[in-house]
């Protein structure tokens, strides 16, 4: 205490946290542990990770290795206490580093530029000398030239000389702080999201309504409103099985009243009262033929049309004709084998088809009608049966999220983008022009410094020197 040099315990801790070395260590530890976390699948069933470990340590040692990583929390490492501690240390380091260095930088930023002795100027990294003929007026000419390249010059009298100086971009030295601050803002936003938001899931069959979503582990989260899935469908590229869009038609209800309707696709979610629904997966209930309703539009030769809802086994009439159709069978994904026999190739509704038997006054015929192939809708007698949908057997899987912190995260991202731009593409530039009059001519010394991108600033100085030299010629005429 008496010497003032002895460091207290707190000072020592402070110094540790203010060092770039600690930052390096934290960077390294986060990076190394994260690597392990990407190899081991997170939150996966044990068998999967044991299979992965077998590749690294062999059959015999894999269960023990699994036990080891499991104990250390590597199987859900990004939420483990030690990883969160690392992130906390990272933030603490960032904050203390910044506070520790701020006063010095703040001085550089706020202290106005002042005249310097010629000795001092000689030591600058960028220098040019030239002579200007003619009496007086040199300082004003220098001022004008500095204004022309975008600086606001100040003039000062030295003992014998005059000096004109200017600076630009002094605040750009704070870009680094902006970048560091933005990381803290992003982490703060993430924390708000963790505490005041949720991540849940909802599988909603067509036609059903839910007032809750489910967290991992099955915990119910009340939404505060009802959501109904009116329909789900997959669009394909042409006749291929390559999906073009997954689409759910959703309705939001409050107290039984419809308040919002929207169809969502991947990349275009629905948001209501801060809760967002994202298209994430889908599925078909087993034994779909027994549970769904076929939605058809029967169109007669002379253009009368009617929409029909019918189940497998039901019969319908084509309007204005005596022809009756009976739905005999349904396949969620129908294909034809080498011998020309139709078969169902999967449970999902990739290529739904109905087998319909038609009985009319004069003729009988039957065949498969495909939802995705309009050419199969045309009947041999000129009437048409459009297969619009097979409804009620698919469910849409949605990611349900509430995150009040996301805007803070975005604000942090914006701050980071601006901060990085300032840090890497702008610089604090200072120019001093010293003018000493000797035997009727002015000796001019230009000295300058830039804390980044010196080469670019040197070109500016070159330009300034050129202007002064050219102005000089003009003055002697």
């Amino acid at each position, binding site marked *: 205490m008496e010497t003032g040099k002895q460091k207290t315990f707190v000072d020592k801790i402070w110094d540790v946290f203010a060092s*770039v070395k600690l930052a*390096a260590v934290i960077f390294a530890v986060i990076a190394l542990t994260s690597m392990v*976390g990407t190899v081991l699948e997170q939150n996966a069933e044990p068998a999967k990770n044991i299979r992965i470990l077998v590749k690294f340590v062999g059959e015999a040692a894999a269960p023990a290795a699994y036990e080891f990583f499991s104990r250390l929390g590597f199987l859900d490492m*990004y939420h483990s206490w030690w990883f969160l501690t690392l992130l906390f240390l990272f933030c603490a380091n960032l904050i203390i580093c910044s506070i520790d260095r701020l006063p010095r930088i703040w001085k550089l930023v706020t202290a106005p530029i002042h005249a310097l002795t010629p000795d001092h100027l000689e030591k600058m990294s960028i220098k040019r000398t030239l002579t200007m003929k003619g009496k007086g007026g040199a300082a004003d000419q220098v001022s004008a030239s500095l204004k022309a390249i975008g600086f606001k010059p100040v003039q000062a009298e030295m003992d014998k000389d005059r000096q004109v100086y200017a600076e630009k971009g002094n605040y750009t030295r704070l870009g680094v702080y902006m970048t560091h601050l933005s990381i803290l803002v992003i982490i703060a936003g993430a924390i708000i999201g963790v505490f005041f938001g949720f991540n849940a899931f909802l599988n909603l069959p067509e036609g059903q309504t839910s007032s809750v979503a489910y967290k991992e582990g099955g915990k119910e989260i009340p939404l505060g409103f009802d959501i109904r899935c009116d329909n789900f469908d997959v669009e394909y590229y042409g006749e291929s099985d390559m999906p073009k869009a*997954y689409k759910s038609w959703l309705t939001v209800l409050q107290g039984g009243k419809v308040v919002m309707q929207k169809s969502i696709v991947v990349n275009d979610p629905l948001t209501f009262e801060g809760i967002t629904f994202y298209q*994430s997966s889908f599925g078909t209930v087993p034994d779909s033929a027994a549970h769904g309703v076929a939605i058809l539009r029967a169109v007669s030769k002379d253009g009368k049309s009617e929409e029909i809802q019918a189940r497998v086994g039901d019969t319908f009439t084509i309007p204005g004709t005596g022809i009756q159709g009976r739905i005999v069978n349904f396949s969620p994904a129908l294909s034809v084998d080498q011998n020309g026999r139709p078969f169902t190739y999967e449970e999902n509704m990739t290529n739904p088809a109905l087998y319909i038997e038609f009985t009319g006054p004069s003729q009988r015929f039957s065949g498969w009608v495909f939802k995705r192939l309009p050419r199969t809708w045309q009947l041999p007698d000129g009437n048409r049966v459009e297969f619009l949908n097979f409804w009620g057997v698919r469910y849409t899987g949605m990611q349900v999220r509430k995150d009040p912190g*996301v805007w803070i995260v*975005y604000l942090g991202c914006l701050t980071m983008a601006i901060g*990085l731009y300032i840090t890497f593409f702008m610089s604090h530039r200072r120019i001093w022009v010293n003018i000493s009059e000797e035997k009727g001519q002015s000796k001019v010394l230009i000295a300058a410094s830039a804390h980044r991108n010196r080469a670019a600033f040197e070109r500016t100085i070159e330009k300034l020197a050129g202007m002064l030299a050219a102005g000089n010629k003009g003055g002697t005429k």
Partner: protein
Amino acid sequence: MNSSVLFGLSTVAYVFAMILYIAYLAFRRNQVGVIATTLTMAGFVAQTFAILLRWKEFYEIGQMGILRAIPLTNLYESLIFFVWCLILAYLIIEFRYRTRSFGAFVTPIASLVLAFIDISGMSTNIQPLVPALQSNWLLVHVMMSFISYALFAISFSTGLMYLIVKTEKRNDPSYIFWTVTMGIFVIVLAAMGLDYLTFKFAVKSQEELIRSYLFRASFRSGSGFVSVLSLAVAAGLLYGIWRYGGVLRKIVGSFDLSAETLDDITYKSIAMGFPIFTLGGLIFGAIWADQAWGKYWSWDPKETWSLITWFFYAFYLHSRLMRGWKGKKVAMVAVLGFVAVIFTYLGVNLLLSGLHSYGSQ
């Protein structure tokens, strides 16, 4: 004319340019250098047109709007774009620093990537966009990521050259570092070449080759003899590079590139690449993930590896401020950073599973 003809032309131009750049280093004839530069530029122009043409072809097939038809949706297209960025960055450096020596380092990388495309037999067909990729963020996110990757590739080569020039003693840790790094690159490439030659006809796709047949022709061979022999050859190669690294030092030392210039290019390309990577790769990626998956960050392997890469380069930028870390040590960080980039780009898609597995479809 369709895009694949132009891509073929640009590949031929780059390969010839590579030979000429190396000849230029050996014979120091100015005419050779001028022809090398001209060929590179011709290849670049052909490639630019090829990319634009493919964009147009994709637009006509996909019918998703011009912004979503950018040809950057699978491994093939992304590698092509990576080469394009790399050559562009190189040409800028050639004109700004008025030196051609560096071409002998960059054109081989470009040729290697193009050769990898060719020999791995990866699908070059235009495929329509899967639902997850139908977003305007695709354009900026992927494009900026690859621009930064190309800049990091430049910093990798200059960083490595810096180490080659600056190290003399064989027991110097940085000498061991660069010889081992280079040795591993050579060994992995050679082993993959062997895999290709052995299994070419048995394998349907490059993913299958890498997932199930990687190193099967050498280290992981069924025959114990072959794997032991491969290990012995690999060890021999490593030793050879370590023992005769001095030869390479003499070659690089004879370039008209000073160590300071190399360090300067390394720093500048990282100082450009880092903000582009942060904004395009991480921030735009997070915004897109938020829109598509409902999570701006989900610790998916691709995201995590991007973050690891980001840490490497953040460390590089900070380490220049630390005492005793200038020169060789930071050059090593720059080299390691690019190893992380390669893993983020290729390793994650080919070896790990996760949400970002579009390249493997």
